[in-house]
């Protein structure tokens, strides 16, 4: 209601020495946040993730191009060493970048549904916020509480992170693009999850903090309990397909996804993986309003960063496993009828590469959709209580996963 000839209240000038002086650079860019922006940035990140995964998957081939490391089409002794070092580094990068992207996307998505902007100031529409956060975590003081068990306190975050990293090695991103194409891929997935439970327990225990201990115990109970339905639902896939090799499982889903016959197992897997990620509604181990920060109460700096990256890396990896096992992996939907990848493969050597990229695209798309589902749940739900969590696991999920197993056996006997 202020008339035009009079400046509005907002323009009251304040002397400079008394004024709070904000950064006024790039204000026009700040205002541009919309849902469309979110989408376009997610596409960019999508490309970045695809690039990283491509390099990661092409690593053996790249190393073989160096004559010293290749012997008759296979890696030489030194080649193996170089490959091992580079693969570990690249794997770390892939998980870290995936985590950074997912953290940013989660924050942006939560901001979108909560009528706010979210990170906005670093990079276009806040795109580099997580990078800045990562740098901040890296340069923070490496602090250990006085009473903590130093060795375990230091090693625990690494165990959690390595468990996430191990999952990465067995996932086929495209035909042939898999680091360890072992015949026991499913077993490795189960084993890796168990290591993470140890890491969380030791983190809570070694930090000599009551909240940390409570959080660690809660996490252990939760993770170990949910290993069972998780493993059982993974087992149904093995029963149905008849292989523990993930590539073989993906190849078996060219036409029909496993999700259709093994619907029950899929449901169990999704709920159990939510619990494994320790995300709402199963975030009891680090329930902020109850246990301050749970098992990572005493952690700061990059040690906390490892937990954080591992959690969000799992937000990428567990949906990735779900996609691999239940949603046809890198295949486009109904690839058994007509597959664009086959068309691409017809073009020869480079077409093969393009076909793999095409598979990677579908893989990442399905994974992103599943991750988004988890984020959506996180935006909606409060958290369960610890005993309800256990009841859900032991009274609902485990019987349900056994039912799923029986269904898988019966279906296999009938249809194959």
């Amino acid at each position: 209601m202020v008339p035009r000839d009079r400046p509005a209240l907002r323009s009251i000038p304040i002397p400079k020495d008394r004024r709070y002086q904000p950064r006024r650079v790039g204000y026009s860019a700040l205002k541009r946040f919309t849902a469309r922006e979110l989408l376009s940035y997610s596409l960019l990140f999508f490309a970045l993730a695809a690039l990283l995964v491509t390099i990661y998957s092409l690593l053996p081939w790249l190393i073989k191009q160096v004559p010293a490391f290749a012997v008759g089409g296979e890696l030489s002794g030194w080649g193996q060493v170089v490959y091992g070092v580079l693969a570990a580094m690249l794997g770390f990068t892939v998980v870290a970048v995936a985590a950074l992207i997912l953290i940013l996307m989660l924050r942006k998505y939560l901001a979108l549904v909560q009528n706010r902007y979210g990170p906005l100031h670093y990079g276009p529409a806040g795109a580099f916020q997580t990078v800045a956060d990562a740098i901040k975590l890296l340069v923070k003081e490496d602090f250990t509480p006085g009473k903590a068990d130093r060795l375990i306190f230091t090693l625990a975050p690494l165990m959690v992170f390595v468990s996430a990293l191990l999952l990465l090695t067995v996932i086929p991103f495209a035909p042939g693009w898999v680091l360890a194409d072992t015949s026991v891929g499913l077993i490795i997935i189960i084993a890796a999850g168990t290591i993470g439970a140890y890491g969380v327990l030791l983190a809570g225990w070694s930090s000599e903090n009551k909240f940390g201990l409570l959080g660690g115990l809660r996490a252990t109970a939760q993770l170990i309990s949910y290993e069972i339905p998780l493993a059982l639902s993974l087992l149904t896939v093995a029963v149905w397909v008849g292989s523990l090799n993930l590539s073989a499982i993906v190849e078996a889903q060219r036409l029909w996804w496993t999700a259709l016959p093994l619907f029950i197992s899929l449901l169990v897997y999704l709920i159990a993986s939510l619990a494994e990620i320790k995300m709402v509604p199963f975030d009891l181990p680090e329930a902020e309003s109850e246990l301050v920060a749970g098992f990572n109460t005493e952690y700061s700096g990059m040690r906390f960063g490892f937990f954080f990256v591992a959690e969000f890396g799992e937000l990428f990896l567990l949906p990735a496993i779900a996609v691999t096992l239940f949603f046809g992996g890198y295949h486009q939907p109904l690839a058994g009828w007509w597959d664009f990848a086959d068309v691409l493969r017809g073009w020869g050597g480079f077409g093969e590469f393009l076909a793999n990229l095409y598979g990677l695209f579908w893989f990442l798309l399905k994974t992103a959709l599943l991750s988004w589902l988890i984020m959506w749940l996180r935006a909606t739900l409060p958290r369960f209580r610890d005993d309800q969590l256990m009841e859900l696991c032991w009274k609902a999920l485990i019987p349900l996963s056994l039912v799923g197993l029986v269904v898988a056996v019966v279906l296999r006997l009938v249809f194959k």
Partner: protein
Amino acid sequence: MLRPTELAPVPGAQEMLVNLGPQHPATHGVLKVVLGIDGERVTRAVPHIGFLHRNHEKIEESRTYHQVIPYLDRMDYVSGLQNELPFCLAVEELAGIEVPERAKYIRTALFELNRIISHLVWIGTYMLDLGAITPFLYAFRDRELALDIVERTTGGRMLPNYYTFGGVRRDINPRFWQELTDFVDYFEGVLPEYEALTVDAPVFQARTVGIGVLPPELAVNHGISGPMLRASGVAHDLRKDQPYDAYPWLDFEVITRSEGDCWARSKLRCQEFYQSIELIRQCVKKAPRTGPYLGKGRLKIEAGRQRYRAVEASRGQLGVYLYSDGGPGPYRSKHRSPSFTNLQALPDLFVGQRFSDVIAILGSMDIVLGEVDR
């Protein structure tokens, strides 16, 4: 401070003492509760308050009646306007100041608006306690709209200093009733969303149904008031039982629920949203559009007069005991804050519950530490 007896172990329990607070995300301020925990089971709870103590009552001894009012806003800073009313009522009754009808309606409408503001803060922080962040931001989004109305009317958002003896301090702006109507219409539209995210949500129900049941006899004996008492099935509401301002002319029913658990308290507050909306509508309809906003009267209270006057604030019975020695200010004014009295039920409700439930119960009590410690 713990007494030695409190440190003695409970026989048969492997107990760990945990300090819940004073700096803890779920204590809504600086409440400290020493919890004995056996596994996840709470074996004892000893609350410690006073971290925010400012001794308003001593300050008020050296202030005049008018100067006391700004201090009252600081007690329950979530619904600041409500704190001023019992003091104004007590002084008006002692000094015999008449309040014009229009001022009564203005007061009542703002009082109910503050109830909405307060319950919005509660719903947000309670969901935050239970692990959901989204309703918190929705609640604060809508609270801003209500606070804007308060600011346009009184000049302050949370600490308005608006009620005074004989009415209100300054006239409302001409668009006040229209603003109220607009807000109430909007808010009634959003309320189902809150209910879908809170009282109707299955996970919320799993966390709250049957948790922290407060028996009505215990509630009455402990002097518990407000939504906590009404959720236990006791129909005690000072708006109806000892009406003040415009409430005698408004048409409403006291809401009660019989369950007495955390869910009942939450549901009751959601129902009170609707009730407040309805009351504001009635105020808008019935309030005279012209007339004085401040009654005439001489602010002189004889020596030896005393009065205990209470109103039904958003957390319960908010009262003031006023004793006058004939001077220009209160000789002694004791504030009976609902949070302080409701918090006494804490050990009774906590012991035997799980650690997660403790948070749910504490949140459902809806305490404001500024009011507890005064």
